[in-house]
């Protein structure tokens, strides 16, 4: 691991790492989550750029699902009727997904389009309304970058980045809305997993700091995608000022830890995380002898570097 050649390809986008270094200065909830979950998972994903082929199906499905809802939200905010907004969003997603035939029972083009229509029908008279930002634009699909007060180098502070689906007014209060798809049931157990939660806390923080909006927390619109149906549930999770400050204090330590791993060029395995969430995608790699892991990676994974600085 210490002798690996770090040459990530981010295309036209800037690198989230300091030049010529394995020290990451720009972080999103995904990369921070990998680090917290397992340093080895962080290494395999962020430093080596591996992504499981199975994950790619979920990722692509999620991208299309979010985009469909974004198009609908923007059309509604621009004054379109319900039918007009649905048709406009449906048209684009229908065209963009032509020829996309993933080999997955639940994540297909048909279940994607069905899930969009069912979502719109479920929330047809939704009381959660998209707010308008100071410049008059609807608060939909918002990429943010937030400079922390934590120094990475003498002349550069760490940056937090992310992507919010929407900011809504609900009963006179403001919430970040985050849409999620899952194959699991939408019980109270499902929503309980979001407090504490790295992404939700970051988004609450960003909503207040970047957009100067007094957000109460995050409204989670979850969609359970099954072969024959899609069902939806909504949950709200709040963060106090004390919780946000605590998270930021912890963040300083996590950044220091990440820099320590980078300096040593070693990211240890956290075996206690291997079986969480149905099992880590890299479990089948890490349970092999180190000498043969590369060949297993090349079989079941593909190179696709995750970049917190790449806008969606």
């Amino acid at each position, binding site marked *: 691991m210490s002798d690996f050649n770090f040459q990530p390809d981010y295309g036209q986008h800037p690198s989230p790492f300091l030049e010529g270094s394995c020290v990451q200065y720009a972080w999103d909830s995904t990369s921070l989550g990998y680090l917290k979950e397992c340093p080895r998972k962080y290494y395999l994903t962020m430093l080596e750029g591996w992504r499981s082929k199975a994950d790619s199906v979920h990722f692509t499905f999620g991208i299309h699902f979010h985009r469909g809802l974004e198009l609908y939200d923007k059309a509604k905010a621009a004054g379109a009727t319900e*039918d007009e907004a*649905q*048709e406009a969003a*449906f*048209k684009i997603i*229908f*065209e963009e997904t*032509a020829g996309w035939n993933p080999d997955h029972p639940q994540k297909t*083009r*048909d279940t994607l*389009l*069905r899930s969009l*229509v*069912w979502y719109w*029908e*479920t929330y047809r008279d939704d009381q959660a309304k998209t707010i308008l930002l100071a410049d008059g634009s609807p608060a939909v699909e918002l990429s943010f970058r937030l400079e922390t007060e934590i120094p990475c180098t003498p002349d550069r502070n760490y940056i937090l980045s992310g992507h919010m689906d929407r900011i809504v007014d609900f009963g006179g209060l403001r919430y970040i809305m985050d849409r999620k798809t899952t194959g699991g049931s939408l019980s109270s157990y499902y929503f309980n997993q979001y407090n504490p939660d790295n992404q939700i806390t970051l988004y609450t923080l960003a909503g207040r700091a970047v957009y100067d909006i007094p957000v109460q927390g995050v409204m989670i619109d979850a969609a359970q995608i099954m072969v*024959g*149906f899609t*069902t939806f549930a909504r949950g709200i999770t709040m963060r106090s000022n004390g919780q946000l400050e605590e998270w930021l204090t912890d963040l300083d330590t996590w950044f220091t830890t990440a820099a320590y791993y980078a300096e040593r060029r070693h990211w240890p395995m956290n075996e206690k995380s291997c079986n969480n969430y149905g099992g880590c995608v890299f479990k089948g790699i890490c349970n092999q002898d180190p000498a043969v892991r590369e060949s297993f990676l090349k079989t079941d994974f593909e190179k696709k570097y995750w970049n917190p600085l790449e806008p969606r």
Partner: protein
Amino acid sequence: MSSEDLPEPNPVLISDLFARDPLSLTVTDRRRIIEHYRENRALWVQSGKGLTTKQAAAKKQSPTGKIDLADIGL
């Protein structure tokens, strides 16, 4: 709306539309597909599958055994 009011989805028509070049579809074609999914959903809701305990109780108390989508917030 009761289940008797709902037209049966036409799988041949929908699969035909899916098979065509998406750029060749008209607004009417796309609305047919959207309507198809809406009907699917209405039938699924009327079937009682996927209802919460509260929604299932509302359906059970209905004299007809059917529920209005609006009454259960769907």
